């Protein structure tokens, strides 16, 4: 069970039980659906991006496993107020954290609280759960490329 305790950290379980920013957003200007057919995770992500390219609001709804729910919850907390142009770089760091060995991650510190997902790297089948909200976020951002760009 020691590895599993690494995966199911208290912070993660707390976000699973009480997901933050778990709500519809009728006035969102970006939205996308994410689906992980392996475990049936489904989520819908909402974004409100302002004229300066800042994520003014972000929320999600859906049903997923503990890892995907907590990942979505913590991602929304982490990204509110950040610029859309930062997202691609942050996702790359997050992706590296959950897939690559510890020593190959000089930049993990930039992820702050999201570091609790580092335990996912021991469970390759759960990588999709942890990254589903991020993939969905990218889809939401790319859907309308006019005012903002991740480049």
């Amino acid at each position: 069970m020691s590895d599993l305790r690494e995966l199911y950290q208290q912070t993660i379980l707390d976000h699973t039980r009480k997901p933050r920013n778990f709500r519809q957003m009728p006035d969102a200007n970006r939205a996308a659906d994410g689906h992980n057919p392996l475990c049936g995770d489904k989520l819908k992500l909402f974004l409100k991006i302002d004229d300066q390219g800042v994520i003014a609001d972000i929320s999600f709804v859906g049903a997923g496993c503990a890892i995907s729910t907590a990942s979505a919850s913590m991602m929304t907390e982490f990204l509110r107020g950040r610029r859309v142009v930062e997202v691609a770089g942050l996702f790359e760091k997050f992706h590296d954290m959950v897939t690559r060995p510890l020593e190959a991650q000089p930049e993990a510190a930039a992820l702050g609280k999201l570091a609790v997902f580092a335990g996912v790297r021991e469970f390759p089948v759960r990588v999709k759960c942890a990254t589903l909200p991020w993939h969905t976020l990218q889809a939401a951002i790319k859907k309308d490329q006019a005012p903002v760009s991740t480049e």
Partner: protein
Amino acid sequence: MSTSISKRPRRAGRSAAAPPPGAFNPAALRADFPLLQTTVHGQPLVYLDNAATSQKPQAVLAALLRYYSNLNANIHRGIYQLSAAATAAYENAREKAAQFIQAPSAREIVFVRGSTEAINLVAASWGPAHVQAGDEIILSEMEHHSNIVPWQLLSQRTGSRLRVLPITDAGELRLDELENLFTPRTRLLAITHISNALGTVNPVKQIVSLAHARGVPVLVDGAQSAPHLPVNVRDIDCDFFVFSGHKMCGPTGIGVLWARGEILQAMEPYQGGGDMISSVTFEKSTWNETPHKFEAGTPNIAGAIGLGAAIDYLTGIGMEQIERYEHELLAYTREKLSAIGSLRLIGTAKDRAAVLSFVMDGVHPHDIGAIVDGEGVAIRTGHHCCQPVMDHFHIPATARVSLAFYNTRQDIDRLAAAIEKVKEVFA
């Protein structure tokens, strides 16, 4: 996540509590399965995902090795002794498959990759000859995707449509609705024998009788029934029956389509190639006899022989014995799981076999699967290729325990203890 092989001592042989010789003894049968002797996460493996695929006994592994070591040659081609021997072994496996489901003739047994390919074969070959625009095919709400999608493809090609027999909240077919679904345009009824997601055993004989009264042929998906109970296609009286080798102790990549002889005779080939022809010129080819007409190219010879060995192994134990024992073990599993608070069983049909699906309050099935895996217990979580069933119960997924005759009460006790861990983590 590594799986290591470590020989564990067999359960003490002839203790006072040992069953008498000849009696059904799952603990002894386990010794026939090398993979059941392995450990996962440092714990002896408890394998409870048999509806996905079964483990393989030594007898099947030995048959594969023997074939490749002593018998390997292409079939139906060589004049030399080795090819003749390989052909005989392959055709002998066909005889065994026919006997296993009480088919009238081995010539009605077509070897395919599995149940999925068998259904696709029927949809692709029989389908266009019998199903036209405006025609209808009846399926049930509890079908596996492999008994939905091939018919959808056929419908798209032909302009026909699917009609769906609903299920109750217990996971039983709404047979009272069946009468309303039959129309003069009904061309086929395709139904699963046992639901892979719910464990429901459907009254296929009764369904066939209702369908035949209206002149509608019936395909029975036996992927989940062939491994768990005696099958007699003459008694069921269906027109097509399909099953997979790998779910019944055989190798992957081999399965069976059985169809009535006259239906197979009338069907066009599924794929073209060697062995399925009688003569070929650039102007015209003529087809080989059934079943060879449907077996283009070099088939899975080793797989068929392995399936034959699996059938010998299962019939050696006795399908009636297997059915009876699994029924008892399912009752025990149900009792054990029902005693766990916050756990809810999905599918409570009266007639059930081998499969038990459940959900837990506040815990996604994927997390249940991950945590019990940490305890060495392998179960399936997800939609089990039955998204319409999940939709019926308004759930994204279930955790599913599926049994085989080599599972024991100790396995179920380990499962129950592992589920207690799930509760601990999510407490």
